[in-house]
């Protein structure tokens, strides 16, 4: 079992712009974030702002309000799909024998958003970009908590966006773009534990929505979050 302290957190999706609004979203199954409005990113220089796509904008809006200007903090950036719409647009250009946009090409790598954030915040701290098919949330926190061995604090950003229609039959993706930013600390904040154990069907409640599981924990609506791995027959448990 691994434990760490949760210093602070924030989350952002278009129309879910405060922690209260996330709590309300959790309690109303019918309410989804359909009102699409791109966040403004007004704090960023104009010439940098245009490089952030929908998922990058969510990552900025979730993380920047928690961070002091000039604060150096290592980053674990986690996304299952990343900006797959951008990759698809490049593939479509190749299929049409059109030249590729150099900008899109440079931004289609998985660590592009973390690199842009590093430039935007003028923070040269190390960044790690990870992806996972199952259990992205506990695995991102595992990576971030592990990095507390060498850093006092680590910022973990977990984000995803809906897949383009072409890919939707093949994998799950969220209904709307979102980012959750969590500052993990060695010393400050409430203690959380993270562990992996064989699936115990009698005690575990089936939970298919990892995002809701995490938000419920963060909003203090639950004290335990379960993340099942049906393939390995195990579960990750995060406990307060």
């Amino acid at each position, binding site marked *: 079992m691994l434990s760490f302290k949760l210093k602070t957190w924030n989350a952002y999706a278009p129309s879910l712009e405060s922690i209260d609004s996330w709590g309300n979203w959790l309690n109303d199954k019918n309410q989804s974030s359909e009102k699409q409005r791109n966040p403004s990113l007004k704090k960023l220089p*104009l*010439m940098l702002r*245009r490089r952030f796509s929908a998922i990058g904008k969510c990552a900025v809006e979730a993380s920047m309000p928690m961070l002091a200007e000039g604060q150096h903090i290592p980053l674990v950036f986690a996304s299952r799909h990343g900006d797959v719409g951008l990759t698809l647009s490049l593939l479509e250009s190749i299929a049409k024998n059109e*030249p590729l*946009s*150099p*900008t899109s090409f*440079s931004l289609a790598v998985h660590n592009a958003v973390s690199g842009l954030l590093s430039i935007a915040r003028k923070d040269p701290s190390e960044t790690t970009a990870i992806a996972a098919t199952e259990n992205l949330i506990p695995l991102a926190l595992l990576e971030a908590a592990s990095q507390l061995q060498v850093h006092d604090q680590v910022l973990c950003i977990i984000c995803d966006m809906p897949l383009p229609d072409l890919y939707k039959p093949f994998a799950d993706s969220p209904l709307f773009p979102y980012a959750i930013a969590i500052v993990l600390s060695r010393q400050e904040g409430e203690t959380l534990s993270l562990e992996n154990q064989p699936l115990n069907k009698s005690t575990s409640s089936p939970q298919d929505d990892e995002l809701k599981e995490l938000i419920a924990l963060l909003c203090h609506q639950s004290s335990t979050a379960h993340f099942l791995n049906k393939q390995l027959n195990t579960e990750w448990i995060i406990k307060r």
Partner: protein
Amino acid sequence: MANLQLELKEMIITALDLEDIEADEIDDAEPLFVEGLGLDSIDALEIGLALQKQYGIKLKADSKETHDHFASINALAALVESHRGTNS
């Protein structure tokens, strides 16, 4: 000539996602890169691609001439004009 300048500004605004900038905010003679408009090296590649698509102009990425052509809107307009001259 002034129409070509406007056309090039609109091409750059579209190609580089400069959604908050109006064509008349770009000065014909000001540097496009670093100072002036403040474009960077990825933008230079993107403009090169746009010139190829819109005017059929192919440039070498590393030549001194290319560097000069990208100095300002006026320099780009001169490039397009001279390219039209050689092809007509």
